[in-house]
């Protein structure tokens, strides 16, 4: 095929171009012609098509995501906000922590191992590109029903991919989620979070500044991975019952990324880069246009200099390639020799492919001929902005007006059966089958990991400064009331941080929804964003960045709205953290927070096939008081465990099995108290002598408190229901091996 240059484009304005096949709408194609004053070359068309895709341009979500900026609470801790590769917060002692969560949903359905692996690879590079050493990962995962054949196809591959890539990078996996629901069959959700640390002075941004500075591509060679993956794949819903799309999937090599990390950190340590960007979705199209946009605006690139794994690739394919483990840096000429030396030490392929220019165009040549000449901001930032129509779906009023109708256990026999049933439910059961495939020890700084309420890592071995992170979502509540659901997830993640004694500081989010072309889905999205933004403002936690994944649906059936909220917090001394459970007998157990009849959206209701009713209302003022109580109580708590899915039943199960010390509990209304999922509740274990101190704290912060019982023994005894720890453990730990081998 003849090279389509700018000159040829100018002289052949009426050439028919396959813009629709590349995912562009007719009006978007027309707008490109308007911007350029001519038809685009095929390379320019390729760039616009990937960069204006939903995944890259956020065209359906931008108008709503603005709220995170508009409603941003004032925070002195925020060093880099939304808009960069990842947000950065000041955690004290000169340390800056960067963290972000992203999705890799569609590729993981197609090729579970590589989809999940490259999801981890991508988020880690986002953290690296901020100038930080990545120090931990987390993986909230969602699948179809646990016993569905396709779940047995995707779950093992996804878990192996997360582990295979993350372990090889030397990143401890400090937490995540595994949730099953029929809504995700055909659309598994693979969200990956990474956190990194650096000194304030190390922060790097994605900008190309200084005419004459060099554009340097380093890392893996470029091949045909994932060509068209972004624009074609992420904006395509899977046809129900139809054949699956098999475009070229991205394939990752974690060894190359590990070497890339070490090489990059040495480069950063010697202050050799002015700006840097990793190559993720949309590869070079994204890196060049973003870097050029972020800087003075001009860049010239010789595409033929890009080192190739596959010499048969055309320029369009090179621009769209999503080959993994590549970075693009802007380097001053005086520093390039040292840059190349460090790459040589680590045996990393490195090529100067262009330079920053005066002016405001991004110009790309192929063997001397100009094939791209565009204003970079129009590619990277000024893509289409849609105001999609939204309409509250009919189901909302229907489900909200119904009442949950589930059997309520009474008497010892039924209570015991209910506790065992919840303990073994796939959503609540022991997840060791999954988490044992993840290294949680590497780097030697992991303080908490699964199954604790939050992951916690030490940042400084001398001062013991640390950070804690939790990711949470409740799709049932989001389904019943997206506005409240988002607030409730935020509150839960923040509460999970505080139970360990860390103070919540900042937020990231991964918003997984169906098709934005469905007004009902769009309404769910808008309400969720509004809820999250309002919640963050009230709680004083800025959103530092995040990710939107649309088109998670099969045919006309969208997934439940699933906004996953990640909260990061700081703890001054990790040695003083409050563990999730206790090791001694004779301690007293208290429940902080009042229990209402909140069965709508609960696991108990789910197990009985019901998703109706009204979600709880988030009371963020009360949640914030509870957080202060937890932080103050950290000084004398033996243990603190957040209650969420599965309510008190699950909370007690998890606590007694953690260190194999039972408990004796008295409840006046056991069915409701065990099964309800009222938010804002925490079980606390303290020494008897501290009871009045705890009472005083509860009064100080106006938090309801009730005594549950005492620790000790070899059973979980609730009123007269006696469940031996052995029996409870068997129920809790046999589910996953039975399902997945």
């Amino acid at each position: 095929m003849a090279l389509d240059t700018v000159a040829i484009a100018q002289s052949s304005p009426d050439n028919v171009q396959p813009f629709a096949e590349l995912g562009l709408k007719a009006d978007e194609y027309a707008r490109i012609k308007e911007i350029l004053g001519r038809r685009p070359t095929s390379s320019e068309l390729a760039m616009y098509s990937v960069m204006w895709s939903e995944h890259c341009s956020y065209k359906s979500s931008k108008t709503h995501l603005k709220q995170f900026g508009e409603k941003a609470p004032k925070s002195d801790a925020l060093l880099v906000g939304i808009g960069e590769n990842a947000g950065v917060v000041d955690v004290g002692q000169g340390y800056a922590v960067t963290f972000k969560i992203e999705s890799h949903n569609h590729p993981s359905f197609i090729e579970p191992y590589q989809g999940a692996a490259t999801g981890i690879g991508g988020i880690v590079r986002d953290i690296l590109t901020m100038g930080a050493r990545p120090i931990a990962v987390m993986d909230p995962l969602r699948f179809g029903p646990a016993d569905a054949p396709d779940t047995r196809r995707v779950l093992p591959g996804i878990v192996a991919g997360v582990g295979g890539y993350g372990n090889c990078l030397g990143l401890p996996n400090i937490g995540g989620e595994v949730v099953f629901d029929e809504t995700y069959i055909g659309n598994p959700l693979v969200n990956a979070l990474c956190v990194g640390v650096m000194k304030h002075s190390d922060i790097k941004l994605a900008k190309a500044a200084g005419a004459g500075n060099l554009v340097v591509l380093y890392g893996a060679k470029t091949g045909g991975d994932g060509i068209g993956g972004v624009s074609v794949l992420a904006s395509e819903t899977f046809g129900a019952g139809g054949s699956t799309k098999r475009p070229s999937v991205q394939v990752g090599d974690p060894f190359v990324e590990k070497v890339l990390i070490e090489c990059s950190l040495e480069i950063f340590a010697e202050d050799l880069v002015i700006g840097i960007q990793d190559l993720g979705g949309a590869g070079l199209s994204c890196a060049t246009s973003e870097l050029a946009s972020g800087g003075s605006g001009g860049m010239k690139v010789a595409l033929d200099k890009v080192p190739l794994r596959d010499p048969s690739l055309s320029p369009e394919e090179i621009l769209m390639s999503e080959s993994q483990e590549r970075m693009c840096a802007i380097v001053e000429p005086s520093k390039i020799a040292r840059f190349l030396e460090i790459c040589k030490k680590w045996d990393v392929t490195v090529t100067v492919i262009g330079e920053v220019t005066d002016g405001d165009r991004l110009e790309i040549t192929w063997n001397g001929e100009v094939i791209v000449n565009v204003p970079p901001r129009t590619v990277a930032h000024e893509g289409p902005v849609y105001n999609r129509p939204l309409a509250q779906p009919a189901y909302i009023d229907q489900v909200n007006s119904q009442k949950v109708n589930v059997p309520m256990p009474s008497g010892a026999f039924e209570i015991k059966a209910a506790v065992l049933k919840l303990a073994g439910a796939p959503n609540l059961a022991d997840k060791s089958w999954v988490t044992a495939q993840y290294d949680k020890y590497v780097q030697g700084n992991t303080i908490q990991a699964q199954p604790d309420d939050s992951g916690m890592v030490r940042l400084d071995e001398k001062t013991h400064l640390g950070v804690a992170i939790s990711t949470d979502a409740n799709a049932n509540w989001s389904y019943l009331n997206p506005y409240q659901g988002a607030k409730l997830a935020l509150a839960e993640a923040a509460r999970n941080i505080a139970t360990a004694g860390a103070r919540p500081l900042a937020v990231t989010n991964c918003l997984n929804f169906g098709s934005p072309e469905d007004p009902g889905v769009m309404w769910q999205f808008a309400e969720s964003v509004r809820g999250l933004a309002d919640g963050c403002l009230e709680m004083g936690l800025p959103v530092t960045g995040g990710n939107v994944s649309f088109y998670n649906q099969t045919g006309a059936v969208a997934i439940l709205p699933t906004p996953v909220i990640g909260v990061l917090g700081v703890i001054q001394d990790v040695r003083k953290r409050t563990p999730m459970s206790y090791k001694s007998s004779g301690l007293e157990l208290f429940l902080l927070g009042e229990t209402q009849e909140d069965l709508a959206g609960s696991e108990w209701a789910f197990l009985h096939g019901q998703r109706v009713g009204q979600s709880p209302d988030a009371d963020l003022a009360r949640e914030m008081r509870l957080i202060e109580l937890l932080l103050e109580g950290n000084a004398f708590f033996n243990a603190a465990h957040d209650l969420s899915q599965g309510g008190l039943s699950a909370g007690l199960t998890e606590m007694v099995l953690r260190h194999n010390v039972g408990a004796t509990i008295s409840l006046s209304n056991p069915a409701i108290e065990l099964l309800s999922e009222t938010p804002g509740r925490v079980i606390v274990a303290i020494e008897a002598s501290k009871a009045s101190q705890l009472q005083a704290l509860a009064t100080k912060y106006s938090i309801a408190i009730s005594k549950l019982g005492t620790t000790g023994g070899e059973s979980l005894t609730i009123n007269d229901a006696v469940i031996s720890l052995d029996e409870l453990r068997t129920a809790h730990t046999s589910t996953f091996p039975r399902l997945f081998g």
Partner: protein
Amino acid sequence: MRVGVITFPGTLDDRDAARAVVAGGSEAVSLWHADADLKSVDAVILPGGFSYGDYLRCGAISRFAPVMQLVIEAAGKGMPVLGICNGFQVLCESHLLPGALTRNSDLHFLCRDQEIEIVNNTTPWTSSYKAGEKIVIPLKNGEGSFQCDDTTLAELEGEGRVIARYVGQNPNGSRNLIAGITNARGNVVGLMPHPEHAIDELTGPSAQGLGFFTSILHAMAK
């Protein structure tokens, strides 16, 4: 007491091993795979990780690194060498230790707090432990199944060269529950689980791994 810790491309637990060396009372010296220079260390640790991405076979490429030439020579003269996990794999590929590490029998990567018994406390890496002492340290690998032929097994057992054995259920299919072995001379030790991740209860399941790093200090003091 200077203990070298080698970094190959893809090594992951080198900084953790160095931390453990320091906690054990020695000085940690960083050794680069491409430099044929042992920097006058008294002992060498090959740490865990995925050197060269486990390409070809675990440790198969690392074994040919310039630094390994010197390690093999020094080991031949009695220098204490400890290979942890991937390091153990490199030692086997280098034929400093017999046998080989293969894929875990259930095919999954496994990270667990593993109880092992120190069955031989006469090596410079295990002398801090009592014979028969049981400790809990992390096991984390995908290729930890120790395999060898019957002759080698008889030799190892007969000569008391098994230094550690898994307690309880076999986590990965290793013959005779072998978690670690030593060479005939007793100076080269390979261990699958990770003692460097059990040096304090804050970050590990116990502090019982520290013994490997205090042993070497006392071994050299003799």
